């Protein structure tokens, strides 16, 4: 065990994000929706920055979107990722309008381009965390 490769960093399940991870375990992608201005947002915020409403609910979203931007990481401070460079990190703009940080699986990093249609998939990283990733649609 002493030579174990450091584990992949896993997000802490914060109270605000607990409903998201609960849905993710069922392989359902969710985002918060403001109950007043109806805007979707991600990650969780207590207050809608568009209309300042505090009323919001987690809603299942389509899981479809497009690559809004992409950065191909060639240098990573974490050993788990350092062993996997180059890899893409993307901003996906979901059909519902929210944007989320993610990655694209199943393609070469350099093949990921802005505008590419993608659809969500889940990587069961731990029993508690199923991480949303995207695949070319």
């Amino acid at each position, binding site marked *: 065990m002493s030579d174990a490769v450091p584990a*992949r*960093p*896993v*997000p*802490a399940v*914060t109270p605000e*994000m607990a409903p998201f991870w609960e849905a993710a375990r069922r392989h359902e992608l969710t985002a918060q929706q403001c109950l007043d201005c109806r805007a979707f947002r991600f*990650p969780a915020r207590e207050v809608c920055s568009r209309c300042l409403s505090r009323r919001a609910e987690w809603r299942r979203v389509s899981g479809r979107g497009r690559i*809004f*931007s*992409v*950065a*191909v*990481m*060639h*240098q*990573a*401070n*974490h050993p*788990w*990722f350092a062993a*996997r460079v*180059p*890899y893409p*990190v993307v*901003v996906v703009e979901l059909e519902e309008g929210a*944007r989320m*940080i*993610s*990655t694209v699986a199943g393609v070469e*990093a*350099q093949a990921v381009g*802005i*505008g590419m249609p993608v659809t969500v998939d889940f990587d069961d*990283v731990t029993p508690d*965390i199923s*991480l949303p990733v995207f695949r070319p649609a």
Partner: protein
Amino acid sequence: MAGHPLRGSAAVAGLGITPQGKVYGSNAMGFAVEAVRLALEDAGLERGDLDGLLLNPGISWNDQGMGSFQLQQALGLRDLRLTASMNLGGATACAMIQYATQAIAAGLCHTVACVFSDAPLKPPAPGGARTSSGAAYGFARGFDAAYGFFGVNALYAMVARRHMHVYGTTQDQLGAVAVAQRRWANLNPGAQMHDRPLTLEDYRASRWVVEPFHVMDCCLVSNGGLAVIVTSAERARALRKPPVYVWGMAQGHLGGDPSDSLTSGAVLTREPAFAMAGVGLRDIDVVELYDCYTFTVIVTLEDYGFCPKGEGGAFAAEHHTGPGGRLALNTGGGQLSSFYMWGMTPVSEAIIQLRGEGGARQAPKHDVALVSGNGGVLSTHSTLVLSRLPT
């Protein structure tokens, strides 16, 4: 035309720059103290002449509470009438000079030291293990870390990629900025990259950090300190060095997602700062733009109106911004090639140029300088128009 009441009311009287780069044996506080000492000496002032102290703490200050008070104690300063620790990222330096000018003009204080220091670099470990400077800047928050999305480089890369997509900015145009600034640095003995030439071919061959950024697209990391002393124009004229007058200033913080606007807050600052200064772009002799990345220079050129929006890449590549070119831009080498003291890097080079102390890199005409600061990811922005002329 009746001038703005703040125009020319205050001036930079002192500049202190400690050794920069892989300089060990001191910490952030030590560098700050030394920078202030050098700035006082440069101005011909004593510690007791200072009645204001503004601090922009770099990352190795570790969000130390009340940093400016800690620095006051370390410097043995008494009876200050103005102090604050400020953090607008790279926009802080110009903002500190703005607040100092306002306070001096309002009669709240008379002579203010504005200070930045940092010491993120550690000495090489025995046995040659590489000590990553990136670790210091490589923060990632929970969700982002799960995707290996680390650091400001990556955040900025996302925005740069959008700019390339929307406007057709090319990799070689980014490279042109790096090459031009390196040529300036080759003329600046104080630059970390002074002895290291860089061609576009070298740029293309340099390693990727995070696409679309090669290592040459990213600023250096430096240990060091830098202090600027601001005082009333009247007092500055009685001191050792030629005054550098504050003619115009403004801040602009756009909010929202920079990936949408692809714009810096320079668009908010250019009119008020130039109006206060009573100048237009054609009156600017020396341009010192905040350059955490090559990309930042391109965007900022656009947003001050040097070229139409989206054409900053072509402008930088074709406009000859290196030594002997048509625009004296980032004449010390900038943060890409001289040293990384956040917003103090462009501020200090403007002071050097306006004083005529630029040596081999001195711009032939140096009456008026434009300086920008930018923090976060195009999040905060500040502008100064400085001049060696009182009016």
